[in-house]
């Protein structure tokens, strides 16, 4: 059995789906953020695999992955700071209880 693109696609899809599940079902805001990281990691695997598959001469997919990592670092930083402020005001990280903007 040799490694094909399909194997990587399956792993990436599984990771992405688990990340999506975490985003949808978690009530803890920090865990939602972590699930987002998991989904992003699945997408990154896709990018790198397709970088090998489509453009073996250029490195477009890998550059994309570097940018994804940077963006997710920025996102985690600001997201966690927002969660701190929410926790300060509401004394909870439960996403269901943070409903001031909900009508």
């Amino acid at each position, binding site marked *: 059995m040799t490694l094909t693109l399909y194997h990587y696609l399956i792993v990436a899809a599984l990771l992405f789906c688990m990340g999506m599940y975490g985003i949808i079902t978690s009530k803890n805001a920090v865990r939602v953020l972590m699930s987002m990281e998991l989904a992003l990691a699945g997408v990154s695997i896709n990018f790198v695999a397709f970088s090998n598959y489509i453009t073996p001469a250029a490195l477009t997919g890998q550059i994309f992955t570097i940018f994804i990592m940077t963006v997710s*670092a920025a996102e985690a930083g600001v997201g*966690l700071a927002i969660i*701190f402020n929410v926790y300060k005001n509401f004394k909870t990280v439960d996403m269901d209880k943070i409903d001031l903007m909900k009508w």
Partner: protein
Amino acid sequence: MESFGRIGFMLFLAFIVPTIALVLSRFLQPRFVTASKIQTYECGIKPYGSAWVQFNIRYYIYALIFVVFDIETVFLYPWAVAFKGLGLFAVIEMFLFLTILLVGFAYAWKKGALDWH
């Protein structure tokens, strides 16, 4: 693939050394369990309170500045390796990049986010 061999070897060492240390000490150690021996070690004093202490939020800004400059290192690394083939343009690029990040650092400094009172 070959270049990962060394990393794999290091990984193997990193697994095997603590395993040997733990397994060996398990067989060699004399065991006399008393109540004061199994309590959590805390600098020699009697432990009090929970292990879950709440950190000060001030640490968070330090952590974030660490992350930002960690990412800067990530970009500096390929830049330094490919420096010879890139020429003057890359120097200007990196200079701009560093300047923009230093603006953020200066802002944090000026705002007193790095002060410890």
